[in-house]
């Protein structure tokens, strides 16, 4: 065998090894975090950590429940705002928009999806927080003094501000995924529906949305997992003070990623503190990986069915 084929063989082996590296990376990350988190799991039962909101690192009590519910609270708000907006925009782009307009809107959205999370955070502090403080909070908290609205936090740094910023951040991402799914539906399907006398909205509602439903669900899951992991922007606007379980959208909240990012300076000084933070990262990893596997499973399945 000559030298060229040896090179080829060597390259093939190396490339294969790199692929194996990618396949193992996820397990490495999970194992590394688990390894670092194990001291805190050994010190107390995992139920006590997951389901208690008793967070006093200096006394060795690491209940993460408050942070987990905080994450869900902010993400939930973001999804409630982002999903209808994304879905309507994606339908418009895929079904109604003239090609020329789409050629303008899509690159702009891609451009904006690349903006740094910190910049979204700056915008949140400058615009969203004052909006919540001066308008939304006095209005809703004054007129509807019950469950999700009653609050005595007048700073504007709140779960709602976090949710709104997150919603703005994940919409371009969800829109492009949803649009791709809808545009992947063969054109003949639309034509058959239109030929039967359906209006274009009826076609969209009863044919396109029905056919695209799994893909749309996947897009929502992916957007959701993006929102769950988003750190800096939320850290800057959500207030990050722990108040037990969320009681109002206008209260401050302290999601998991913000906890991780906020404690990087102090975590080495208290015993087990760093292990608890690594456990928080591990929980975040597990949530996002499960969501992503489900969503990409759906999308890959759709792709393979079509080809």
């Amino acid at each position, binding site marked *: 065998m000559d030298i060229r084929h040896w090179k080829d063989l060597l390259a093939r082996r190396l490339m294969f090894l790199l692929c194996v590296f990618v396949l193992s990376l996820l397990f490495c990350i999970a194992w590394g*975090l688990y390894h670092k988190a194990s001291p805190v799991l050994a010190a107390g039962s995992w139920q006590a950590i997951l389901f208690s909101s008793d967070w006093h690192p200096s006394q060795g009590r690491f209940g993460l429940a408050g942070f987990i519910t905080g994450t869900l609270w902010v993400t939930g708000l973001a999804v409630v705002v982002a999903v209808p907006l994304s879905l309507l925009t994606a339908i418009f782009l895929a079904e109604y928009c003239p090609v020329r307009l789409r050629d303008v809107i899509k690159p702009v959205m891609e451009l904006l999806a*690349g903006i*740094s999370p910190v910049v979204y955070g700056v915008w949140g502090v*400058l615009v969203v927080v004052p909006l919540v403080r001066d308008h939304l909070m006095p209005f809703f908290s004054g007129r509807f003094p019950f469950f999700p609205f009653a609050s005595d936090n007048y700073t504007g740094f709140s779960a709602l501000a976090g949710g709104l910023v997150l919603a703005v951040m994940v919409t371009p991402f969800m829109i492009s995924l949803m649009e791709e799914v809808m545009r992947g539906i063969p054109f003949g399907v639309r034509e058959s529906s239109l030929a039967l006398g359906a209006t274009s909205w009826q076609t969209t509602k009863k044919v396109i949305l029905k056919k695209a439903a799994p893909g749309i669900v996947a897009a929502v899951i992916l957007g959701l997992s993006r929102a769950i992991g988003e750190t*800096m922007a939320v850290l800057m606007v959500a207030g990050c003070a722990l108040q037990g379980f969320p009681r109002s959208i206008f209260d401050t909240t302290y999601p998991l990623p913000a906890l991780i990012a906020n404690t990087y300076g102090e975590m080495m000084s208290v015993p087990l503190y760093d292990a608890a933070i690594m456990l928080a990262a591990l929980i975040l990893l597990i949530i996002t990986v499960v969501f992503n596997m489900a969503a990409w499973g759906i999308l890959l399945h759709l792709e393979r069915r079509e080809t």
Partner: protein
Amino acid sequence: MDKRKVEEYIFKVLMLGAVLIVIGSLVFILATILVKGLPTLSWEMITKTPQGGYYMGKGGGILNALLGSLLLGIGATILAAAVALPIVFYLNLYLRRRSRFALAVRFFLDVLWGIPSVVYGAFGFTLMIFFGLQASLLAGMITVALLVLPIMARGMDEVLKMVTFELQEASLALGATRLETAGKVIFRQAFPGILTAVLMAFGRGMSDAAAVLFTAGFTDSLPYSLFKPVATLPLAVFFQLGTPFPEVQSRGYAAALILTAIVFSLSILARLITRGMNKHVIK
């Protein structure tokens, strides 16, 4: 008017409203950053390092963070490209079209893409402790490389999928090995797209803060060693905003503007490349 038409009309209005809200809020972000950042933007900001008491309103600039971010981004991009390129060539040239192994690698890349950057940061931190490193340029580079690897690899993968199979067959039929085909034919053909993927990953790596918070640290001096902490632009924005002094905060807005400008020019450059560099590409 018929009920179906009314429904159609209502939803059209809703859709237009949604589009306006989405585009409007994004334009609003840019306008806010521009209006707030432009007045304090000055040469001093990008040509000087922070002087004593910078974070209390004294003179200086953020050259340290600017250079730090560029270096970190370049290093991470090179590292990630060194892993991503072989992988995508392997997936597209060496494996069969419907290979299960290729499917698994793509699936894992997608899942890795979805892992939040703060988790990469925490993992980078455990790696750092494992290898006995302190927060440094090198640790930051490795962490960011892991973060952008899936983005870059999937971007390149999409490009290589587009290269026609005939081109590969023609090269192989002439007696070239797969490696030669990859390096001399497919790479050239896909080069503009590959460069786009690299630039996008670079932008993403530069703009992320959560991954470097643990691993790259922060410093007021210029980056001078792989093993010393390094300042990064997103963190400079974050820290300046965290101070109670309005003049420091407004410099934070200017820093945010610089960061956005860099990311935008990268993205626009990538677009121009895909459009302009198709000279050597066989249609």
